[in-house]
C-alpha cells in the first residue's frame, strides 16, 4: 500500500512537476453475480509515475484483470478516484473514455489482436485513424522502426512469426505516443527466447522514457520489471519498488 500520499485529493498534479501517469485512490469495483455482490476491487490505491516499468501480479481472481480494465479505461470503477496523466477520468462519458483511451493508453494483448487482412503498416495506423491524425503513414513507419520491423511493413500477420506479430502490436501501442503502455500477458503466447526478445524491447522502450505497466502471473517476467505490485482479493498485497529480487536491478 502507498503509506503516505504526497498529493492532496483534489489537486493530483503538483505544481512544477509532471503529474503521476496513474493515480488511483480507493478504487472499488463490485459486480452482481446473480443476486450476490462480488467485490473484485476493494479499495486500491496506486501511484505510477512517468517512466516507471511496473509489473502487476496476482493469482486469478485477485482483481488483476479488473484493475487493468479500469486503468485502461475499458471499465469504470464503482467508487474511488482515478487521474490519468493529471486528468480526472473516473467518470467520463463513453465517447470521452474512448478518446482518452485511444490517446493516452497503448494496449498490448496476449493474442496480439492484429487485423488479419491488413498489412503491418495498416495495423499500426489504426489508432491514428480514430484520433484523426493526418500524417498516419509517417508516424506508423516511425513506430515500426522503433520495434525493429521497418522492413516488414507490407507483410500481413499470417506472413509473420509470433514475435514479429507482437512487435507490430507494440508498434501499434506506441504510435499514439501514449502516456502508458498497458501490456496484458504480452509473452503468454510466445516461446522463451521470443519472450526474452519482447521483454528486451520493453526494456529498451523504458530506457527511452516510456511508462509501462505489465500484467502477468509469471514471476520471471515480473522479475524484469523495476517494481512489482501484487494483488490479492482485490487489494494491493505488496508494492515492492525495488523489484522482486531485492533491489539488485539498476535503472
Amino acid at each position, binding site marked *: 500500500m502507498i503509506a503516505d500520499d504526497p498529493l492532496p485529493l483534489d489537486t493530483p498534479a503538483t505544481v512544477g512537476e509532471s503529474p503521476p501517469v496513474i493515480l488511483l485512490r480507493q478504487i472499488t469495483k463490485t459486480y452482481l453475480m446473480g443476486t450476490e455482490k462480488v467485490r473484485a476491487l476493494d479499495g486500491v490505491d496506486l501511484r505510477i509515475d512517468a517512466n516507471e516499468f511496473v509489473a502487476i501480479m496476482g493469482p486469478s481472481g485477485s482483481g488483476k484483470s479488473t484493475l487493468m*480494465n479500469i486503468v*485502461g479505461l*475499458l*471499465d469504470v470503477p464503482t467508487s474511488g478516484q482515478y487521474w490519468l496523466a493529471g486528468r480526472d477520468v473516473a467518470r467520463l462519458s*463513453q*465517447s470521452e473514455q*474512448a*478518446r482518452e*483511451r*485511444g*490517446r493516452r493508453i497503448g*494496449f498490448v*494483448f496476449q493474442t496480439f*489482436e492484429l*487485423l488479419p*487482412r*491488413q498489412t503491418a503498416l495498416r495495423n499500426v495506423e*489504426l*489508432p491514428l*485513424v*480514430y*484520433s*484523426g491524425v*493526418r500524417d498516419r503513414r509517417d508516424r506508423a513507419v516511425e513506430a515500426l522502426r522503433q520495434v525493429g520491423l521497418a522492413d516488414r511493413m507490407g507483410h500481413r500477420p499470417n506472413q509473420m512469426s509470433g514475435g514479429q506479430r507482437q512487435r507490430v502490436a507494440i508498434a*501499434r501501442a506506441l504510435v*499514439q505516443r501514449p502516456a502508458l503502455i498497458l501490456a496484458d500477458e504480452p509473452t503468454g503466447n510466445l516461446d522463451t527466447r521470443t519472450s526474452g526478445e519482447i521483454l528486451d524491447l520493453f526494456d529498451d522502450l523504458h530506457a527511452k522514457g516510456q511508462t509501462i505497466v505489465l500484467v502477468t502471473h509469471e514471476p520471471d517476467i515480473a522479475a524484469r520489471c523495476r517494481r512489482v505490485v501484487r494483488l490479492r482479493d482485490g487489494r494491493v498485497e505488496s508494492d515492492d519498488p525495488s523489484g522482486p529480487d531485492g533491489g539488485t536491478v539498476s535503472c
Partner: protein
Amino acid sequence: MLIFANVNTAIEQIWANKLRSVLTVVGIVIAVTSTITVVSVVQGFTGYVSDFLQGLGTNAMWIWPERPGGEAGKRLGRVTLDLRDVEALRAECSTLRSISPLIPRPSVAVALGRTEITTQLEGVSAEYHAIRNLPVEVGRPFAFLDVERRHPICILGREVLRKLDAGDDLVGRTLLVDGRRFRVVGILAEKGSVLGNSLDDLVLIPYTVAMTMYPATRTSIALTARAFDEEQVPEAKAQIVSLLRRRHRLEAYQPNDFQIRTQDELLTAFNSISIAATAVLAGIVGISLLVGGIGIMNVMLVSVTERTREIGLRKAVGARRRDIMLQFLTEAVGLSLLGGGLGVGLGYALTAIVSLHPQMVDVAVPLWAVALGFGISAGTGVVFGILPALKAALLNPIDALRHE
C-alpha cells in the same frame, strides 16, 4: 479520413466474402432490376403513345354514339348519330376547324388477282388526312369531290401492300374490297406499330361509299373533329354536346346518348394504365427490398459476431461507439450498393433484350431510374444495417476482447 478508412474496410470485407456478399444481395438485385426494367418499358410505351396521341394533334376530338349505362340509358329511344348531325356540327360549331365521319370496319376482305387478304377499313372524308395526320406518300389523297360523288377509290397502308405482295405500281390498278371494285389512288406513309398492332394494316375509302356498302352504319357514325387550337377544345366540346343534345331532343335529366373524348382525355386514360403498372412494380420492389434488407441484416449480424474481437480491439485503440456504428453501416450500405450496381447492370441487359423484339417500341433506361435504383438500395442498406451496427457499437470492449 474515417470515411475513407470505413469504405476501405467495407470493400475489403465484401471482397473477402465474395460469394456470401453476392448471395446476400440477391433480393436487392431483383428489386433494382425490376425497377429499371419496368420503369424503362413503361416509360418507353408512355413516350410512344403520348407521341402518337400528340401526333394526332392536341386539339383533336372523337365523338361516337353510345347508349349510356343504367336505367336512364334503357329508357332512351334509338341511339343514333347520322349525316345530318355531322352537317349540323359542321355548320354550327364555330370552334371546329374540320370534322370527318369515321366508319370503321375491323375486318374486310381485299382481293388482288388471286391473292385475298383480311384487313381493316375506314370510311373517311377528305379532311381525315389532316385530322389524323396520315399523309399520302405515293399517289394522291381523297378530294372533296371523291367523297361527294362516291368515287370507288381507295388508299392503302404499307402493311396491306406487303400482305398483297405488291409494290408502289399498284397505284392506278383495281382491286376488290368485300367484293366491290376499287381503284387504288394512293399509298399512306409508313406509321409503324403500337403495342404490336400495325398502324399500316389499313384501307381508306370515302365514307359515302362505306355507308352504301354497310347500310347499318348510316345511323351510327363516329366522328373525328379538330378545334382551331388547343385553348378552344373545351368550348368546342361544349358546343358539340349542346348541339347534339338539342338535335337528339334530350331532356335535361337524360344523359348523353353519345361519347366525346379529347386527345387530352385519352392521354389521361393511358397515363392511368402506366400508373397501374407502376403500382404493381412498387409491390414487387417493396417485397424484394424487404427480403433483401432482411438478408443484409442477417449477414451483418453474422459479421458482427464473427468480428467481435476486432470490434473490441478497435474500441481499445480509441474507436467511439459512433465510429463502430458508422463502420458497420458503411459496410451494410456497401453491400446494398453492390446489389444496386448488379441490379442496374442486369436492368440494362434485360431492357436491351426486350428491345430486340421487333414490335417493341424504343426503350431507353432513364437516368432517374438508375438514380432511383441506387437510392432505394442505399436506403435499404441504412435501414436494415442500423440494428447490426447498433449491436456492434454497443458491445462492451472487455467482453468483445475476451470473445472466443
